[in-house]
């Protein structure tokens, strides 16, 4: 069994969001880049599966679409334990573009992991598009995945609960929180070995841009918080009913 984990390179979740002067692009100055949190959990689960005796997982590959400056993120994935990395050498222009690039490399894997969304543009699209392009089944909102013989058993979140489903490989699992307890911290040995592992660079294919961003805005500043003391719980509740009209 071969596993592929899609890796997004996103700003650290504590980043203060700023845009350039004409508000047409995210200001990357001073930004620290990380593995997209859901992708990192997916990778952690992939490693757990590989380490499970009898799971039959022979390799875990990671892939992203990005320029050379995203290789640090891929090498972190290698440090965590992935066996091989693939980078499609292009700016990730939109979800369709990214999925089209990944479709070049995603064939031949039994199990592909994607995060439920990326923490930057929140598209929730790449995994599903890729599954459609390469013609494999996908399950979204996955919070647990076990390999049971020739089938995958997954738990997915649905409106109003959760559901255990099973299906055959190949399969693309779009994962959310819970798929692994916490992202794995790379061990020293893994960090030192990362550079010795293969990192393949692939030329992008031509693809139309379907969606772009004309500009961005920060949400309007909130009015100051109306503060009450511990003894004024009643007043607060009345304000919620009479002033805010939400009770």
């Amino acid at each position, binding site marked *: 069994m071969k596993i592929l984990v899609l890796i997004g390179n996103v700003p650290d979740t504590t980043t203060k969001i700023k845009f350039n002067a004409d508000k047409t692009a995210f200001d990357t100055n001073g930004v620290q880049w990380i593995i997209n949190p859901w992708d990192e959990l997916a990778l952690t689960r992939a490693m757990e599966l590989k380490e499970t005796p009898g799971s039959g997982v022979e390799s875990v590959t990671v892939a992203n679409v990005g320029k050379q400056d995203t290789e640090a993120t891929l090498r972190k994935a290698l440090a965590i334990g992935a066996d091989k990395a693939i980078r499609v050498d292009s700016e990730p222009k939109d979800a369709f573009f990214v999925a089209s690039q990944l479709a070049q490399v995603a064939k031949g894997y039994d199990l592909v992991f994607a995060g439920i969304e990326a923490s930057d543009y*929140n598209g929730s699209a790449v995994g599903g598009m890729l599954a459609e392009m390469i013609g494999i089944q*996908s399950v979204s909102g996955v919070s647990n995945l076990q390999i049971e013989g020739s089938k995958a058993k997954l738990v997915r979140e649905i409106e109003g609960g959760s*559901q255990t489903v*099973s299906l055959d490989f190949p399969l693309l699992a779009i994962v959310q929180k819970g798929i692994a307890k916490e992202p794995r911290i790379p061990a020293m040995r893994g960090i030192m070995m990362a550079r010795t592992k293969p990192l393949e660079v692939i030329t992008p294919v031509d693809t139309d841009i379907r969606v772009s961003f004309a500009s961005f805005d*920060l949400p309007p500043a909130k009015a100051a918080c109306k503060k009450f003391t*511990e003894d004024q719980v009643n007043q607060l*509740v009345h304000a919620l009913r009479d002033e805010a009209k939400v009770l």
Partner: protein
Amino acid sequence: MSVLIFVDNTEGKIKKAGFELASYGAALAKQAGENAIAVSLGKVESDELQKLGNYGITKVLTADDARFASLDNQASAKAIAAAANQTGSKIILLAHNNFGKAIAPRLAVKLQAGLVSNVVGLPVSLDPFKVNKHVFTGKAIGHAVIHTPVKVLTLSYNSFGLVENKVNVTFEAFDPGLTNADFGLIIEQTQTVSGKILLSEAEIVVAGGRGMKGPENWSGLEELASVLGAATACSRPVSDEGWRPHSEHVGQTGKIIAPNLYFAFGISGAIQHLGGVSGSKVIVAVNKDPEAPIFEAADYGIVGDALKVIPEMIAAVKEIKG
């Protein structure tokens, strides 16, 4: 020409997100000078479908096929694509819920459409097609432009609201022409959360953080949730500690919610937490630390001990609810 709205159902019932999407779709159809047509997959009671007429839907395509109950995103995407082709729809709308998120990307590929997910508000312009969406987990708004003739949008929950607009609605049976091979998913077990208000669709959410001190103190919070008709939630440290299940974690890497009213008890308001709740209409913070960042995001606040405030709030809410 028409705007096609995929209204999903949970065991035959349409949820609020479905009616909100219908309202949005009707408004968008009006803006574009087109008809608002809904498509429904699976067994749905006819009086449920009838309700779509209350929100401006003039026609509903119904694929009354029990196999859709498995919520198979491949089969559903195929069916919706067939409906879009049959109706000649150039704009297809889905809810930005678990199911909508699963279907929309497949649908966009099938229809060679541009997809914008997590949309807020009606398009700013139709040509070019420009629409706003949440980016950076609610920390900014992006003005997205779709360049393709066909557009797929998923609507952010509770961002548009219900708009009543009673029209005559007609129904038309629709056969998407699927075979059993299209339904690959085998459902082994379904665990539904019953008797509880779901976090994803709650109008009011009551959340607790580390300031709640321990899982044993959640009974007060649950009682408050029950008198308010609210769902319960928690911050990341609380779910990491195992005080509450991961499914209750709201924040950047947990659930993103946008209720009308959000209570944060003993939550300091780390930037990652705020990212997940900043879409809430009104935020109430209760925290001992007057400098906690949650107060920057809150509309109302109490500087005090959450464990003391909760019982008083239960009493106060009971009083106004009579």
